[in-house]
């Protein structure tokens, strides 16, 4: 597996720096460290790495999905191919449409929380959290400090689980099965923590309007600390396996380049946007929960390709571990649910003992929380991108219109723009790199 010796110091691992021509007609570049391409350089690189699709011969139309394993669910892409070059893609979504917005209009604000779980089922708590932030903004509910910290910890655990799962699936799409099992083993530690905290492994429904459902259980902090100390070591191992793997490097480097301008125009958010050199993270820009009270860096890379999206996610795992550690260190005492009987549920342990709590519980369950008239939009940073919730309220206990602006909806749309002119095999790598979950996409 060793490379023939080349001039200059040997590159670490298996990255070839010989510049030998690739079948695409361009050579693999090894940019010097800390080299940040400008927007014009990226545009030029994008034009160079894409095949010209104007001069086409006979077009072959192939349907990829909805049962294709690399579409991560029930996404269907109709590909127009000229040889192996992708001329056009027509995405077909909707196979998992459940009418979430229509269902939500018939439910009180409390009853919508379990529905939001089913949007992005790989990071359910982040979806609960985003929805509750929007409702709290609408109703003007103040969240106690301890609840904000618990929310931050749980959201970051979801981010860890999501990114580790993404890594396993992404690498499996590009050809290796073993790595998938490694990632699933590590994800299990995080799912155990989430199960300990929320009682569920996948659909947590743990957030409440004005706080969270339960306090941290005994022993959680200790167990959580062990996991977040252990994970950065695992990330170093992932990087050792993947980052300098020659096959991965050649399949990911300079593939699917999508500049910051393209990202804005197509509403591509989250890791793909940050991989294009944009320092945009709603945890910093529009802080919520306890994110303005902890120190962390926004993970940014500059080459805007599949490889850099991988690097961004690895950085984010490290930052998430830092955030969780700080939250555990500074966890304040106090209630984990706001004492606001008009908008929040009562604690179940009080309901059977306290007449006032029982009355308020009855009111919340059968009537629901009252919202003022108005419309709000709140966006939060979920693992896949920016998740926005638009609520129009006419007063009363049910939203008049609720819209979930989910990141995967736009990431599913962007595949044609991202993959036109690339090779057929690259479509798999590109689609995996933008991390689409179809529950999130179809709603």
């Amino acid at each position, binding site marked *: 597996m060793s490379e023939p010796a080349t001039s200059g110091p040997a590159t670490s691992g298996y990255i070839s720096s010989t510049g030998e021509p690739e079948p695409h007609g361009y050579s693999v570049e090894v940019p010097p460290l800390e080299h940040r391409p400008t927007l014009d350089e990226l545009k030029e690189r994008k034009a160079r790495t894409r095949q010209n699709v104007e001069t086409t011969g006979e077009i072959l139309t192939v349907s990829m999905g909805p049962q294709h394993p690399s579409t991560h669910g029930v996404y269907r892409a109709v590909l127009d191919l000229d040889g192996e070059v992708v001329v056009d893609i027509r995405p077909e979504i909707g196979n998992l*449409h459940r009418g979430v917005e229509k269902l939500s209009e018939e439910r009180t604000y409390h009853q919508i929380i379990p529905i939001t779980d089913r949007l992005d089922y790989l990071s359910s708590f982040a979806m609960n959290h985003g929805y509750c932030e929007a409702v709290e903004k609408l109703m003007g509910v103040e969240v106690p400090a301890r609840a904000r910290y618990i929310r931050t910890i749980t959201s970051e655990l979801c981010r860890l689980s999501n990114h580790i799962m993404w890594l396993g699936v992404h690498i499996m799409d590009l050809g290796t099965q073993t790595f998938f099992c490694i990632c699933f083993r590590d994800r299990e530690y995080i799912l155990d923590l989430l199960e300990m905290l929320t009682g569920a492994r996948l659909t947590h429904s743990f957030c409440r309007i004005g706080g969270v459902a339960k306090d941290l259980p005994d022993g959680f902090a200790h167990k959580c600390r062990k996991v977040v100390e252990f994970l950065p070591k695992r990330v170093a191992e992932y990087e050792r396996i993947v980052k300098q793997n020659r096959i991965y490097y050649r399949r990911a480097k300079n593939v699917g380049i999508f500049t910051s301008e393209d990202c804005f125009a*197509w509403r591509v958010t989250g890791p793909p946007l940050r991989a294009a050199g944009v320092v945009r993270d709603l945890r910093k820009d529009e802080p919520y929960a306890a994110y303005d009270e902890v120190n962390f860096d926004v993970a940014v890379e500059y080459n805007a390709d599949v490889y850099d999206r991988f690097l961004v996610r690895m950085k984010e795992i490290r930052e998430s571990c830092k955030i969780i550690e700080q939250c555990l260190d500074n966890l304040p005492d106090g209630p984990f649910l706001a004492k606001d009987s008009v908008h929040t549920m009562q604690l179940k342990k009080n309901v059977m003992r306290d007449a006032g709590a029982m009355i308020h519980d009855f009111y919340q369950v059968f009537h629901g929380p009252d919202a003022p008239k108005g419309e709000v939009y709140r966006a939060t940073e979920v693992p896949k991108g920016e998740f926005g919730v638009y609520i129009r309220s006419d007063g009363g206990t049910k939203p008049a219109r609720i819209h979930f602006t989910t990141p995967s909806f736009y990431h599913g749309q962007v595949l044609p723009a991202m993959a036109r002119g690339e090779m057929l095999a690259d479509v798999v790598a590109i689609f995996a790199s933008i991390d689409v979950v179809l529950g999130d996409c179809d709603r």
Partner: protein
Amino acid sequence: MISLEAIKERLEGQFGSRLLDRADFRDEVTYAVAPGDWMEVLSFCRDDPQMAFDQLDCLVGDHLPERAAAPFQVVAHLVSHTHGQRLRIKTALAEDPTLPTVTNLWPSAGFDEREAWEMLGIAFEGHPDLRRLLTTEDFEGYPLRKDFPLRGTIGGRIRTELKGKI
């Protein structure tokens, strides 16, 4: 970086009385415009350097049957990465609603407009590919309209009062 106040001043200075309504709620600002001004206001928001709303966060269709003269509305949420601000612009539409497409300003509006069309029946003129997106091709009716029932099945057990609606 420009404050939200400066953006409001700029927009109001440019369009004046053509902005029909302004609502400030929870530190968010909403402008209502006439459907005829929709394109002009949105392209000004995108292209003017003091506005620079380079991202369309979402475009939402809505049905308000209680507003008899204009029962539909389309709401656009804009984001400016340059100034770090958000803005909401909406327009009210009468029956058989049509609106020019904004896919030429922000291509991300493609799926949003297709969704608004299939869910509410709001047609977008000039949209490159206005087909059903989330429902099947033979689906009839507009699910997100308020008169569309929540329950009911096609084919199997049909409740008689729903006939003709689903």
